[in-house]
């Protein structure tokens, strides 16, 4: 095969990989179940780094033992958390090593255990879980608004969870109003 032709194949492969990244994310956002999650008060020491915001959800710190399902998760273990629809926020129901059956009104979100047992949640051994929705890039200078919301402002995140448990941020809401929304273009 001649060099230009070989290069075309390589460039096509690399382009496909990049487009694939976008497509997979969009597939999660388009087909996933919308789930509203509450963001906890954000740690002021590590909230705003450069031009992205670190989001800390109530479902990041889970109590092993008090929640149903599996127990004894260790650092870096994969985990599936079953969430039940709530008003307005979705709540964790059970923890699983394998993807569980998902009843109506529930979703199973996939994550990775960052720390296990380092602190207690509701008197039980904790599991700090990361779902890949903890960072959100915002235009430079606008992170402060999310970093230090006013007393009467409540920030929540609308997340899409697809049928494989992958999650993506669909929108950032302030007092229930959409502030940032994810679009393809």
């Amino acid at each position, binding site marked *: 095969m001649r060099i230009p032709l070989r290069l075309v194949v*390589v*460039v096509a492969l690399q382009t496909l990989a*990049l487009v694939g990244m976008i497509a997979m994310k969009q597939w999660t956002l388009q087909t996933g179940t919308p789930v509203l999650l509450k963001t906890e008060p954000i740690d002021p020491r590590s909230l705003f780094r450069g031009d992205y915001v670190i989001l800390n959800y109530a479902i990041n710190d889970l109590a092993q033992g008090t929640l149903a399902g599996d127990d004894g998760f260790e650092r870096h273990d994969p985990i599936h958390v079953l969430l039940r629809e709530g008003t307005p926020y979705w709540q964790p129901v059970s923890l699983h090593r394998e993807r569980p059956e998902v009843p109506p009104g529930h979703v199973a979100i996939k994550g990775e255990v960052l720390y296990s047992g380092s602190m207690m949640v509701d008197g039980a051994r904790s599991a700090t879980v990361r779902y*890949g929705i903890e960072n959100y890039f915002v235009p430079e200078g606008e992170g402060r608004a999310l970093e230090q919301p006013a007393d009467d402002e409540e920030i929540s995140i609308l997340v899409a969870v697809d049928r494989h448990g992958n999650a*993506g941020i669909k929108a950032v809401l302030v007092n229930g109003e959409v502030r940032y929304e994810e679009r393809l273009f």
Partner: protein
Amino acid sequence: MWDRAFVNRLRKELPVWVEQGWVAADRQAAILDHAAARAERQTRLVPVALAVMGVLVFGAGVITFFAANWDAMAKPLKLALLFGGMWGAYAVAARGLAHQALGARVLGQALTLLGVILFGANIMLIAQIYHIDSHYPNGVLLWALGALAVAYALPVQVVAVAGLALAMLWSGMEIGDFERLLHWPFLVVWALFLVPILGRSWRIGAAAAMLALSVWCLMTFILWSYDREGEQIFLLQVYLLAAMAFLVLGAALESRPAVAALSVVVRRFALVGVLLSAHGLVYDDLYGLRRLQDPELSWGTERLASAPYPWIVATVIALALAVGLAAWQVRRHGGGRVDGFERIGLALLAALGVLMLVNLFLPAGYGAVAALYVAVNLIVFAGLVWLIVAGYRAGDRFQVNAAFAFFAFGMLALYFNHFWTLMDRSLFFMGGGALLFAGGYLLERQRRRLIGRLSAAGEEGGAP
């Protein structure tokens, strides 16, 4: 040495040498052509180096420019810039690589590298634009695989080197940040890079591959030191056997013309791997001797009752590989002609192999482990002396220097080693010194015999 100044000087000197009768007149042109060709090959490195540096600086500038104006751009414009930049770099690279002129090909190589850099930048920037926040080492893996595809498709060595660096970074993140105890997927990616490196006989690529493997081994060993300290000794054993297997493989490459140029690179890295792993075996704490001697001690490595099952399998496989390759290499070189010196080397290897197997099953008692430790040390130092002698015999200066340096490091390590303070250290070193004197005497005797034999052969053959 083969620079243009040398060629010019040669051009002036050669007529004098011809006139003096030192060089035949009809050889003059051939000598000059040879020197000019060597000088030409050397000067090619300068434009390549400059072009690569230029590409790196230009790439950094482009990324910085976009970063500074990123927020002001709409998503479609951002995507157009990202994809357009990458496609543009590859398009110009294709024209350069297809060209016959050296300068165009150098530019083509540099722009191919730029294309790979922009592919990596695109992964990160698309992740940022679309808030893709997954397991971040995967981004570096994707980048490395992009470089791998380029290395397969195009004869651009620098891309293979960059890809190996990325694979190392990816594995470093998995090992360091995610504590993957044995991040074996690295070995798969590493092996995939070997295909174009061997196929195109890339020497720098081969050096990069061996370096990447060495760094990966080191990172794994460091993590193991924290996580499974009692198993470090078994890991070192496997490293030593694997490095020996590479040493034999490196020697085998020499007889294949297509990859003979890579032989010296593989052999040197493998030799350093053998020496480093063997040096590790000199430390008593890795055997758990300190805690076996004083069970109340709160620090130091704990000796396992026996090696966990995977280590038994790994050691046996590595041993079989090293022995099998060595036997294959001996057979290829007419197996019957193994001289006394080579037999000593094979005996040392066999003894070390047996001690490694014993170490896997040895009960955690002080006496038995101390005896094993002393035996391993004796074999390691005897092996170092053997390597020095073998280096002299083969005229391999690198081997002589490296083995000698590790002999000195080993002696230094022993001097400060806790275990030997329990013995009469002066007696130990006097005994060791006497052994070395004896070894030196035998070596000199053998050298004289060898020279004598060579001279006799020369006289019989009518050589001057």
